[in-house]
């Protein structure tokens, strides 16, 4: 248990990112307990923060900032708020909108980890004399025999968040601290630990969904940003079967909300197969047509050295998705992936994270997919 953690050989000056939630508060407390010199910081990511949290969404309200401050008080560490709203808007929110506009499905949490927490925040922390940034993510850092650092899945697979950290390179990992990664406990036990430490956030509901869309209405958010753009919904033969208010509002594999009104000739449910922003068309079809046999992904980022040889890995395609076996190779700076078994509903824009056992090998952004039939 944490109480028995050995004192680090050299206490680090640690900047703990504190969202106002229970995980980051416990992580900061554990970093203190491990002997580090910890300072708390809450990132203000919204230029116009709401006063209170709406439901369980978001982490950028004034209430969250106050909860983080109270946790820091109890832990006994200095605490500051840093305004990274402008960087967040540029690097995460605008990218999110642009990706949807281009017919892709982005994951803003990965983007935030890559560009904000372990770039903007880390750079500033290092410049100010800190050694590391600590977060409440569930993932493990293993120091290899040659001193290189590897990112591994959390000890508890059910809570593992290594997927959203798959964008970190070795340099970023060298300055990251995830004190919750080796925890094999339920969320209830983390809450109990927070309670035992006197942290009022122990009972706070978990946050999920997209923090900058306070009401959870992604479609409404996009519609406000991108406007209405009515277009056709077509089937695989190109025949018009309905209309939509904006192709950006759809995700590959989506079934609900198509509003086609009449059943398909074969009576089976129809899914979004393709989104074409160029001609503002959404293509729908049967589930089988969602089966993907291969994909290419761009902007690969490697957690260690670039995989020297093509090989067999496991891949994760969604934040809460399962693992699937793939053959992967790098060709002309792109990641080419072939699935052993076809996978369903793979959306361009999402990240594919490759694993070797529990070790994160790297990640890349899915650019194109190939139907299972064609890939064979």
């Amino acid at each position, binding site marked *: 248990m944490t109480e028995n953690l050995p004192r680090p050989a050299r206490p680090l000056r640690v900047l703990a990112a504190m969202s106002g939630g229970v995980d980051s508060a416990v992580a900061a407390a554990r970093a203190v307990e491990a002997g580090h010199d910890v*300072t708390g910081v809450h990132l203000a990511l919204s230029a116009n923060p709401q006063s209170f949290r709406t439901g369980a969404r978001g982490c950028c309200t004034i209430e969250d*900032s*106050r909860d983080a401050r109270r946790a820091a008080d109890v832990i006994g560490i200095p605490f500051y708020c840093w305004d*990274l*709203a402008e960087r967040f808007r540029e690097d995460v929110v605008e990218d999110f909108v642009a990706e949807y506009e281009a017919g892709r499905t982005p994951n803003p949490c990965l983007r935030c980890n890559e560009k904000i927490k372990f770039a903007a925040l880390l750079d*500033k922390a290092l410049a*100010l*004399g800190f050694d590391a940034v600590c977060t409440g993510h569930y993932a493990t850092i293993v120091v290899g025999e040659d001193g290189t650092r590897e990112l591994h899945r959390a000890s508890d697979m059910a809570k593992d968040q290594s997927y959203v950290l798959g964008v970190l390179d070795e340099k970023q990992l060298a300055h990251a601290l995830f004190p919750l990664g080796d925890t094999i406990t339920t969320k209830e036990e983390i809450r109990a630990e927070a309670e035992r430490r006197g942290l009022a956030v122990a009972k706070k509901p978990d946050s999920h969904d997209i923090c900058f869309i306070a009401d959870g209405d992604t479609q409404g958010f996009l519609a406000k940003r991108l406007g209405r753009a009515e277009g056709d919904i077509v089937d695989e033969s190109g025949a018009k079967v309905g209309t939509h208010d904006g192709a950006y509002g759809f995700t590959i594999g989506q079934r609900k909300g198509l509003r086609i009104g009449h059943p398909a000739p074969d009576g089976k449910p129809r899914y979004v197969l393709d989104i074409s922003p160029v001609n503002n068309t959404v293509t729908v079809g049967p589930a089988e047509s969602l089966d993907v046999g291969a994909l290419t992904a761009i902007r690969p980022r490697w957690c260690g050295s670039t995989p020297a040889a093509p090989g067999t890995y496991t891949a994760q395609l969604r934040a809460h998705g399962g693992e699937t076996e793939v053959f992967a190779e790098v060709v002309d700076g792109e990641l080419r992936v072939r699935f052993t078994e076809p996978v369903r509903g793979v959306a361009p824009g999402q990240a594919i994270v490759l694993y070797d056992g529990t070790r994160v090998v790297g990640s890349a952004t899915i650019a194109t997919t190939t139907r299972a039939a064609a890939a064979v």
Partner: protein
Amino acid sequence: MAYLDHAATTPMLPEAAAAMTAQFAATGNASSLHAAGRRARRTVEEAREALAEALGARPSEVVFTAGGTEADNLAVKGLYWARRAQDPARTRVLASPVEHHAVLDAVHWLAEQEGARVEYLPVDRYGRVSPEDLREAIARNPGDVALATVMWANNEIGTVMPVRELAEAAAEFGVPLHSDAVQAVGQLDVRFGDSGLAAMTVSGHKIGGPYGIGALLLGRDQTPVPVLHGGGQERHVRSGTLDVPAIAAFAVAAVLAAERRERFAAEVGRLRDELVRAVRAAVPDAVLGGDPDNRLPANAHFSFPGCEGDSLLLLLDAQGIECSTGSACTAGVAQPSHVLLATGTDPQLARGTLRFSLGHTSTEEDVAAVAAAIGPAVARARTAGLS
């Protein structure tokens, strides 16, 4: 520890603390008619007289409030409502753009909710309003001005306003002028009776008194519409049971502030000048904010090019030096100061500000600590840059 944030709040004077605790044991509502009530009333009235004398006012001109913010709100909103009730044409409010948020946001609220037309008076690069500009602004249509409000001295950059001349200009047209003197009391010669002001805000905890107590000094011919309605205390202008312990302690602090002012201003001014010299020696391109000469003796305000004020704050805090960026916070996040922006400071430069404010506990050691820490802190903050 070097506490250099006395403009935020200054340690309570032992004499004030003693006066306050002495009252805690006593019972009595100052509005009650029995012996206990009469005792409480007597304490309040003696305090009122002492405070009035310390501030060059008459006892009847003292309206106790729960602090500076409330006094500012009462003056700005109350005088606006009263003047508009007398003549519906009076909806123009003249305000300096460098006011504390207690004034600025009250004025803004009047514009949003009460049909006020707000006109921000021009300021020079030190944040000073000129009497000529105030005169010109009123003269454009003296009949439609509800009130004017210009602070006595600026809380961020320390610039002192020509309050008497401004009050004269307003008086020429019969326009009431309010001034927030929260930062000025104890450092400048603040005498309400000689100032020509219609209303003036003062606060307890900035002069060694307790938190949560302040006063609006209010000319006897001024009858603002109350913000708080109730039992009719304080000239029917500010209802609410009087806070006897806080009032007693506030008066003690005000009396001591007035008695000690000249000597304190000279001593703290000398320390402040030393601090300014030390900062300039360590960081030659640091820019002193506010009027270099006509400023609060305890205030030193700097902008450090290429630095984030937040970074400097963190680095100095880690070395036990407590100061402020000087600007208001939302969710603890520093916004570029409206004061600096109003003085025409480059917005990038305005992000790297620090306010050192000295007080009655400040020492040479405090200044020496800043002198030793500021150079390396600025160098490090510059590498972190503007995020």
